[in-house]
């Protein structure tokens, strides 16, 4: 593989052209704007930066954002695992439809999702008129934030676990079964160790998406400071108040979280690949 790749090098045309275009485009469209924001943040100085990111309103926004994202990820982890399992292992009417439908939250604009959810859970809404008499209010509470985060990040766990589950050969399970393993043992000892890296990667992606979610949340959250104000919303409010320093500092926090998740998913991918190599 390595020697062939080496021989192939520069045999095909377009290296200079595509390298030039790619580097230029990434520099102008991706790197430069990120650098501009980090520079703005850095220009604040450490003391101001720390004052903004550790302010009471910011800290309560982190709490709400991370807490809600954690709950949403918990739900999506279990729901995603269930969907992936059912889609790979069973045959039933409507399976193709369900498989296609899983991608809907990615295709549907977040503003449309937000509008739809707030209407569903409103007083006269399809869900709201059943839930509100029971004392369950979703709109303008943290429950609404969690639900918006759940909806917008449903596909991640399904789509990371599904291909791995498809690749597991049935004969390994057969072998375990003939050796007397119970179903639960087969899942815990044979299937789960293979699925786990993909499952965690999916959860991390889902969590990262939930942390940064804006469109879905903004409709249903009602932005009450300290109660339903997520970080992305607080950034937006700071911009509307022309408090650019505040916006830059908080955006840097979200950016760092994004970089950490990117790093974690890349490491998990490497771990998974190593695992698969060993299995071969």
């Amino acid at each position, binding site marked *: 593989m390595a020697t062939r790749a080496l021989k192939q090098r520069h045999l095909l045309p377009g290296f200079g052209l595509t390298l030039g275009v790619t580097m230029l485009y990434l520099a102008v469209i991706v790197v430069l704007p990120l650098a501009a924001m980090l520079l*703005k943040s850095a220009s604040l100085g450490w003391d101001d930066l720390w004052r903004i990111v550790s302010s009471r309103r910011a800290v309560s926004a982190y709490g709400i954002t991370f807490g809600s994202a954690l709950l949403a990820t918990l739900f999506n982890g279990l729901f995603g695992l269930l969907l992936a399992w059912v889609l790979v292992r069973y045959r039933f009417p409507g399976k193709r439809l369900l498989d296609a*439908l899983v991608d809907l939250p990615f295709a549907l604009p977040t503003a449309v999702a937000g509008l739809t959810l707030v209407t569903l859970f409103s007083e006269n809404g*399809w869900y709201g008129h059943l839930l509100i008499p029971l004392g369950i209010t979703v709109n303008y509470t943290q429950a609404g934030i969690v639900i918006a985060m759940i909806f917008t990040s449903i596909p991640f766990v399904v789509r990371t676990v599904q291909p791995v589950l498809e690749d597991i050969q049935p004969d390994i399970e057969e072998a375990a079964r003939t050796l007397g393993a119970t179903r639960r043992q087969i899942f815990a000892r044979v299937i789960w160790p293979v699925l786990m890296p993909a499952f965690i990667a999916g959860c991390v992606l889902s969590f990262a998406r939930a942390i*940064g*979610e804006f469109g879905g949340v903004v*409709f249903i959250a009602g932005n009450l400071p300290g109660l339903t104000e997520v970080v992305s919303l607080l950034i937006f409010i700071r911009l509307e108040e022309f408090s650019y320093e505040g916006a830059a500092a908080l955006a840097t926090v979200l950016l760092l979280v994004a970089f950490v998740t990117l790093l974690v*998913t890349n490491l998990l991918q490497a771990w998974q690949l190593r695992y698969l190599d060993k299995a071969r």
Partner: protein
Amino acid sequence: MSSTLPSPRRSGTELLLIGLALVLSAFVLVVPVALIFTFALRSGVGAYFANILEPGTLHAVFLTVLASIVVVPINVAFGICVAWLVTRFRFPGRQLLVTITEIPFSISPIVAGVCYLFLYGGQGLLGPLLEAAGIRLMFTMAAIFLVSLFVTAPFVARELIPLMQQQAGEDEEAALSLGANGWQMFWHVTLPNIRWALFYGAVLCNARVMGEFGAVSVVAGAIRGQTQTLPLQISLLFNDFNISGAFAAASTLALIAVLTIIAKALLEARGIGSGGRH
């Protein structure tokens, strides 16, 4: 491929899991979509079209289509470039380029908007310089195009890279050895090989460009009728308590979303696509 396990009869667990998945999916995925179209059409087809043809919404449709026409071709071209570069050549920093390409995917749309504000805005890195030259980007359609380019930069590359890695370039080498020049090779060999993945990447890119809300709401300002794309118009109508108008506008984007997942299902039935890994 899948579901090859022999299952002579359905066990209780199997029925339970299938039932649970279907019921949850109905509540979480089917009902919301049904609600969008029900609410859009609840006052009748006439009122629906009156809402769509309302000048503000119609203009928002125009701007959204314009954004798609500008952004999608550029990111299709970029996606082909990146994919060609990282799948056909080995060079130091290759993995870094892929990672940088993927950055927009993991960044909050609000943060993307803020980045562009601090680049081209009055407070930004290049803003004052551009202003001195008489160029204003912030709060114009140009800013919407730029931030949409950022947000959707990875979409096409993400579909092409896994496919082109499998194809490994033998076809292209054959074309060259038969005397084709670079462009002939690209048009007659590469493009036909990747066309469906390319199409699917473009469809995903389009859905995101048309639906982008967070990043666009930062850079668009709030100038009614000037930079109001459809997602912003939906939010505006909702805040004006015009629920029918908001759902009429939302139904156009929801229709595009439904067409997008149909396109995906059809392409996957042909055995194309990266297996849904976004």
